[in-house]
């Protein structure tokens, strides 16, 4: 079953574009990455799903329920962390988290225990006033309020800003645990390495429209790889003229080229060479992203 499904979902702000005919389906139990640069429509999509803004046209369901008619019912099972966190400055962190928990039907004592556990994990002082917390600590409050009620769907909109690398690592670890528990995660980011580390599938969004949805593994496998060879003797460039090879550079004993195609073809070619060293580099998501983005159509 798809946890999130949108069909031709469109949101415009007057003449300005938000999202256009956006089709998206997030499967139950997956970690779905949502990448694109600022202004591409990631937040607009998320805010529409949460009922914070109203769609101009199209449909969207979460847990099979229409977002326009079943908002509170849907949000009962959703944990949300926005990119920028703002809370009531006069409240202590613990009071804010209890206030947040009071909206959900989840067991109060279990939620309180989870708040304490998450606060310990993220080293957050719950007795401090929100106003006295650093931005990073406010973000931790945001993470806890998003996870404390054990939501079935966790929606994260560029969640790592303000978190130091160690906390990010703990946060990602926790997200994997939540996913193992059965939670579905929609993870929006413009930091592609984050999506690569965490997600099962990724959607690339450009100018309000999803231009490519791919399994992370497939995305990486089907891409160009860079080979760098160190040979025992002088290299003969003609030996590397094989289908799929491009960007060939030969310099004394060193050869480098890009290869796209069946990996067996390149290993057969390498079999006859006297190799001293071989380096095969995976393209990172950044390169893949730019590849799709520059092509624009994703096909």
């Amino acid at each position, binding site marked *: 079953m798809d946890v999130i499904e949108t069909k031709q979902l469109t949101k415009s*702000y007057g003449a300005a574009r938000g999202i256009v005919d956006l089709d998206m389906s997030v499967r139950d139990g997956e970690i779905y990455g949502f990448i694109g640069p600022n202004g591409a429509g990631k*937040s607009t999509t998320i*805010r529409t799903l*949460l*009922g*914070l*803004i*109203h769609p101009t046209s199209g449909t969207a369901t979460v847990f099979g329920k229409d977002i326009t008619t079943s*908002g*509170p*019912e*849907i*949000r*009962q099972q*959703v944990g*949300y962390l*926005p*990119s*920028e*966190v*703002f*809370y*009531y*400055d*006069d409240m202590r962190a613990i009071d804010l988290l209890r*206030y*947040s928990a*009071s*909206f*959900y039907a989840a067991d109060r004592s279990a939620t309180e225990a989870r708040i304490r556990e998450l606060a310990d994990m993220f080293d957050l002082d719950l007795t401090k006033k929100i106003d006295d917390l650093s931005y990073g600590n406010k973000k931790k409050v945001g993470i806890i*309020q998003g996870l404390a009620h054990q939501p079935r769907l966790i929606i994260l909109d560029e969640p790592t800003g303000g978190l130091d690398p160690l906390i990010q690592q703990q946060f990602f670890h926790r997200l994997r645990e939540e996913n193992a528990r059965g939670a579905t995660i929609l993870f929006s980011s413009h930091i592609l390495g984050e999506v690569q580390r965490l997600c099962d599938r990724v959607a690339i969004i450009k100018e309000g429209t999803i231009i490519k949805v791919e399994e992370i593994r497939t995305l990486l496998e089907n891409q160009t790889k860079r080979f760098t060879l160190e040979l025992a003797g002088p290299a003969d460039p003609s030996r590397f003229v094989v289908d799929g090879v491009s960007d060939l550079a030969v310099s004394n004993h060193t050869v480098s080229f890009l290869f796209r195609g069946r990996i067996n073809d390149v290993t057969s070619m390498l079999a006859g060479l006297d190799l001293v060293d071989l380096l095969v580099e995976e393209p990172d998501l950044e390169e893949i992203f730019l590849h799709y983005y520059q092509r624009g159509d994703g096909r």
Partner: protein
Amino acid sequence: MNVFLRELRAYRRSTITWAVALSGILMLFMALYPTFTTDVAVTRRLLEQFPEVVRNALDISLSTFFSVNGFFGYLLNFAILAGAIQAMNLGTGIIAKETTGRTADFLLSKPITRSTVVTAKLAAAVVLLVVTNVVFAAGAVLLATLLSEEESSAGTLLLMASTLLLVQLFFLALGALVAVIVPRIKSVVAVTLPTVFAFYIVGMVGDVVANEDVRFLTPFKFFEPERIITDGRLDGATLAIDAAFVALAVGLSYLMYVREDVRAST
């Protein structure tokens, strides 16, 4: 219920301050009542020397000024002005705080309908105003007892005191409506003070030009103390206008709050 309780807690200090200030000022000035009435004839002659226009602008009615109820009614005009500021601050602030404080994303991404949010907030605001009024009315009755005269009537005095709440409800509803119409109010006071004073000035101008119809235009003239003392009841027509405005403004506030997009907090 959680939003309702949260708002009660958030505004409890300011409500206590307003209630104590309104009652305190009332008591302070009511304490001057015996001074004004020690020699009524002298004070009356002094006030008669004021041009009628000035007396009207200051809401001084020589026919009632020297009774406890009349003196209270005179002071009530200023209490209502202050109370209107409290109510409009509350109405605007309690609705607009989620956008000015950028907490709308937090609150409205919770499993709660927007109409429930408005209901909880307005219900909390009404309770806070009722608390203010109970303290104010208790102070008024206490003073009336202390300064008791034969002609003073606790019933009339309470009826007059109740107009504070009726005018406050008008400004609460107006404040809520302004909060949903004006996006991102930077300063609540900058919106409420000019609005309240504009209505007050309309009332003053009406007094100066002695136009009775002004009582249909500004809530400050909906329930004039002198008329309540004379009639022993509230004016049905202006009460209906007050109620109709409150219903309309609250209804529009609901409609707009439910339909509006929540602006991104970035």
